[in-house]
């Protein structure tokens, strides 16, 4: 019944319906508008938010600190590419998730870590942390932390060896502040580590963890671009203050400020716990998740055998995410119970 002669008016205007002819009409269901975000945009935004921390790491530990970071990125991206070829799926490297995993892993390695082992960590992070679960979105555990847990279990010496770190200025810290606190001399500990040092950096630790200030800048980037929500970060920080404070009131531990500024607490709160895939997606669940990580971390630091505890806390809470999601499901609009 298409009768071109029946066109009332506009046909004579030349262009008319040429562009919208039956041939190229798309039959797509609504909505026909989009917010404009893509997964890869999110990934690259987080990558940018990590740059201050990377910069601080290089500033304090020297340019050689880049070596393990690059190693981890190479391992992660390479593994992603290979897995994509094996599965004959579309190339998922450009979406940036593997790059981000590698960068995250690199930033939680000691500055003098062997680059070959960092590559292995990257491969494990993407391969065991993500690919075996079915790829991006289906993984249960934070891939970067899976990589780190593997490295920690495989090369405990290398992963806790801070002595090779070429510290810039006069810093002598060979152990991390937390390590000094747990195993060192209290006097040495009190003398060396000041709050301003913890805030600015220049203390022993992983490449990305050293400067709290750089992490806070990254957090600001994530919050302003609305890539991450404050809920998990906020509840984890508040949880850290509350639990650490409670224990220090009971005479156990150094108190909230030290706990939050030292080790991986901030880095974990800002970049690890907020990973979409492995954190709850209900509002209430996110509060529970953050507070749970804080509680576990403080418990491990106070009563466990390890000086640090953020990594295992996040991994443990990752495992609890399906349960948290189920329990904290939002009430459907208008439902009474």
């Amino acid at each position, binding site marked *: 019944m298409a009768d071109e002669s029946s066109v009332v008016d*506009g046909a004579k205007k030349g262009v008319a319906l040429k562009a*919208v002819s039956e041939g190229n009409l798309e039959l*797509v269901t609504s909505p026909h508008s989009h917010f404009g975000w893509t997964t890869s945009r999110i990934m690259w935004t987080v990558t940018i938010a990590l740059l201050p921390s990377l910069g601080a790491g290089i500033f304090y530990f020297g340019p050689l600190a880049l070596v393990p970071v690059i190693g981890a990125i190479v391992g992660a991206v390479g593994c992603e590419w290979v897995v994509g070829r094996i599965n004959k799926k579309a190339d998922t490297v450009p979406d940036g998730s593997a790059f981000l995993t590698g960068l995250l892993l690199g930033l939680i390695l000691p500055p003098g870590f062997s680059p070959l082992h960092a590559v292995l960590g990257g491969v494990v992070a993407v391969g065991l942390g993500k690919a075996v679960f079915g790829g991006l979105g289906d993984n249960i555990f934070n891939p970067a932390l899976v990589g780190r847990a593997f490295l920690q279990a495989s090369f405990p010496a290398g992963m806790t060896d801070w002595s090779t770190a070429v510290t810039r200025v006069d810093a002598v810290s060979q152990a991390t502040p937390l390590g000094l606190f747990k195993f060192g001399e209290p006097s040495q500990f009190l003398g060396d580590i000041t709050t301003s040092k913890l805030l600015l950096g220049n203390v022993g630790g992983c490449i990305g963890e050293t400067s709290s200030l750089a992490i806070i800048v990254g957090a600001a980037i994530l919050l302003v671009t609305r890539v991450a929500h404050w809920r998990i970060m906020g509840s984890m920080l508040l949880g850290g203050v509350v639990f650490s404070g409670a224990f220090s009131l009971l005479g156990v531990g150094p108190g909230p400020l030290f706990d939050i500024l030292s080790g991986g607490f901030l880095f974990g709160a800002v970049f690890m716990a907020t990973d979409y895939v492995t954190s709850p997606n209900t509002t209430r669940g996110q509060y529970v998740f953050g507070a749970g990580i804080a509680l576990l971390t403080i418990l491990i630091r106070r009563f466990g055998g390890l000086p640090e505890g953020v990594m295992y806390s996040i991994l443990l809470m990752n495992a609890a995410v399906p349960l948290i999601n189920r329990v904290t499901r939002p009430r459907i609009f208008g439902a009474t119970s």
Partner: protein
Amino acid sequence: MALKSFHGGVHPPEYKELTEDKSLEVMPLPAEIFVPLGQHLGKPANSLVKKGEYVRRGQVLAESSGFISAPVHSPASGKFVKMLKGPVVGGTTADILLIKPGEPDPPKEGEEGAPVDSSPMLLEPYRLEMVSGEQIIERVREAGIVGQGGAAFPTAVKLSPPPDKPIDWMIINAAECEPYLTRDYRLMLERTDDLIDGILLIGKALGETVNLGIGIENNKPEAIQALREGVVRRAVQIEVFELKTKYPQGGEKMLIDAALGRKVPPGALPMEVGCVIQNVGTALAIRDAVLGGEVPATATLTVSGLGINEPRNLQVPIGTPLREVIAYCGGANEKARRVVVGGPMMGFAAYSLDAPVVKATSGILVLTEEELKAPPETACVNCGKCAEACPVNLLPFRLLKLAKAGRWEDTRDLGIEVCMECGTCAFTCPAHKPLVQYLRLGKKNVRNLPRKES
């Protein structure tokens, strides 16, 4: 003061500036019009006309076929050529009456018969002060008025709530939260008094005790002002609710929540909380039918989008093919990618430009790549943005996975039936998942499930 609103929602780019200053124009009759028998939610109407018969504008072409159904009238005088199967909006084909508008052939020599009248058939107009509630409902049914909000629910049914559901609020949905669309806005500005008449008529039909209101998003300050002035001028009791601009503010449940703070329970209609919602266009159609005696012959719609050369607000004869409307608006440009009937959030993509405009058509959008922003689908990263935005607090990403796995019982347990397909989730999804499609599929399959024993 915090503006009234609801939980969740998104802010799609509005693009209202394309047409908000374009006054309503009447589009001339095309050479052929295609009138579908089913222009409403429910059963299609039954055709009454014979091939070759001369029909007058306003004449009943097809009668209502049940309680939830509506009659179809001829939008123009002319010759009923034939009934055919043709494309309609929504991607299917349906029974369509083809009418060639024009004067009747004069009686041939030797044939007897009076000259045929070509003037519109009018019903008897009532006066606002005199008309009774029953008369209004009867006229609305007779005139085949359907809801203009999108679902095209027969309005007469909505005006006759069961006696055990007392109605105390009637609110006109003037949120027009869909981007691009400005026809309600133009109607409110250009036909303020008629709209107030329509509101009063609906109020009358529902009973004298019902409170009247109109909810408008605060991105239309001029319409809010015009209505407030109108209400004062006419000295009537109509409350103008100023609502926050947020999609889907025009969802019935969202509107009631925002205006009155009442939450419609899952699976229930607004009447459950004593409310009836009517659209601006519906109120005006009721006014025209009751006070003017006219049946709907045109659809007021916005033709917009970056892909159309001359965006306009038009009164288009029902049955006009989309192709003609687009041509009338200067045609589409090279960047045009998709033609959408309705708003961009809930409207249907047209698969054929031969599909006709129907009673409830609210807009025709010719959209370009720039507006569609449709990169390929990627993996869901569980970001939860869909859940955060969902106005009815569902977990669309979970439902998507369950629907893909065919776990319909589980989707029901997660409340999929509450979904109103507003598209908020898919709009916000960074992975560009076809969430709405799967939610629709899930709803359809859940409806077919055996009833849960309780």
